[in-house]
């Protein structure tokens, strides 16, 4: 099914376009990893980027989380033209992005609760305002029993769940997850992707990068294949797994 496109690139965010990349190149040092990318993600949709190892999935998420600027082409993310943005504008937009890294970084000595609450603290919320919501979120990702444990005590899968909870805490407009199921059992992996995909229901745009293309039937989503830094045209899928009937 052909994907509808917004007619212009102005006011994209107001018209539901969270991300639009037009002929974007990006890379590190002398090497260009992403080449001629055209991509669009809309509010309330899930986009799944899949491809072999070293295809450029992680670099793609780095670009979307504003850590890797475009070398050419145009990137408009949450209404910000990234190539021309000032550092302060980039920081403002980053606060509206929930990012789940392949190897999430935490403040290791802090508790799971405190780490998950960090985005809300940075937005200036008081603990009494977010305490209930954060505890609910920590329970929701299955870490209720580890809420007060320092993150350094968590297992790899638990760290990933904590990263997801942190990414969702501030109710972001764009959720990025880089290989969120790595090291998990297939059941847990599907559960995590389903959890992320559920965020589309509250209007977030969800972008998941993973090598595991068996996850594309967890929820309705646009599936993009990436290989050697180039994206193919997206295909739309429906939820056909057991989750579709729950």
């Amino acid at each position, binding site marked *: 099914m052909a994907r509808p496109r917004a007619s212009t690139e102005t006011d994209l965010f107001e018209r539901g376009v969270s991300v639009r990349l037009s002929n974007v190149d990006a890379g590190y040092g002398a090497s260009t990893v992403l080449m001629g990318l055209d991509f669009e993600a809309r509010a309330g949709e899930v986009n799944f980027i899949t491809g072999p190892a070293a295809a450029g999935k992680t670099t793609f998420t*780095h670009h979307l989380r504003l850590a890797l600027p475009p070398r050419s082409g145009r990137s408009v993310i949450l209404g910000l033209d990234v190539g021309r943005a000032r550092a*302060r504008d980039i920081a403002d937009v980053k606060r509206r992005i929930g990012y789940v890294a392949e190897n999430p970084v935490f403040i290791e000595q*802090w508790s799971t609760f405190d780490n998950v609450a960090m985005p809300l603290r940075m937005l200036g919320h008081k603990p009494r305002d977010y305490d209930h919501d954060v505890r609910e979120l920590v329970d929701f990702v299955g870490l209720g029993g580890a809420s007060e444990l320092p993150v350094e005590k968590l297992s790899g899968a638990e760290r990933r769940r904590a990263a997801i909870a942190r990414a969702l805490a501030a109710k972001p407009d764009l959720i990025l997850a880089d290989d969120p199921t790595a090291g998990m059992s297939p059941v847990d992996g599907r559960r995590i992707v389903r959890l992320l995909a559920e965020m589309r229901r509250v209007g977030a745009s969800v972008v998941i990068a993973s090598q595991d293309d068996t996850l594309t039937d967890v929820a309705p989503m646009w599936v993009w294949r990436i290989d050697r830094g180039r994206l193919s045209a997206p295909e739309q899928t429906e939820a056909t797994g057991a989750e579709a009937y729950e």
Partner: protein
Amino acid sequence: MKNPFVGMERSLFWTLAFAAFAAAAAGLAARAVDRVAVGYEQARSNYAIVRVLAPDGPAGMAAAEAALAGAPHVTSAAPMTAGRAAALLGEASGETIDPATVPDLRLIEIELEATAPHVDVSGDIVAAMAAGGVTAEVIQAPDNASGGGLAPRVRNAAFWGALIFTAMMAVIVWLAARGLAARRREMVTVMCDLGATRGQTAGRIADEAAVLGLYSGAIGAAFAAVAGLIVMLLVIPGATLNSVVGMILPVDLVPVVATPLGAAIAAGAGARAAAGAFHAQAARIG
């Protein structure tokens, strides 16, 4: 919320405290040298010797004492005894001088009040003694232009030495605080990923370092103050805690008060610079 200071870098804390101790001790030592030099300079410039030339004999010395009692600038006068002369000569030469071998010196030691530099103290005293029928000469310590005045040079050396040493300690604190920022790198990365600006991230780390610098600086300065008191008790003959405390002027405490503030500023600045650099690295990986 877990206190981020719990289990924090004790080694870093004591590194900063030691640097602060050294800086405060250098400041206190410079201040002590300054006070000793000022005291020496005052004693030197407030002292003179009158040599009675005429009339001869005990009558001449008596007339000279009487004239000095009413002479301007003189606060006290006492003839130099053979014993006193032998003691002074012994101090200067390092040998024991028998007072019996000291000839009749016809010298009177006088203490002078503080005067302005342009006042001719010797001339006024000689004139006053002449009015009393005594011919005398006044021997004063050489002034700065005549090769005297070592004290100002000592004071300058102490001041600049302490300042340079303190600056070196500040650099140590600055570098150590960069280490704190390195240990907080995960926090820098997290804050950067969550949308903190460089200023917010650097400010957060700098605040932590400044508090650490303040506390460690206070501890170091307190140790330096205690060490200073102990040294004074050991060095000053017959000193007691009360007498030593009574000798301390408010200005003497400047190094103790300034050290925690200086340590906080140096630590905050070091951590801010490092955290800013780490934030820039985390913000743009390409």
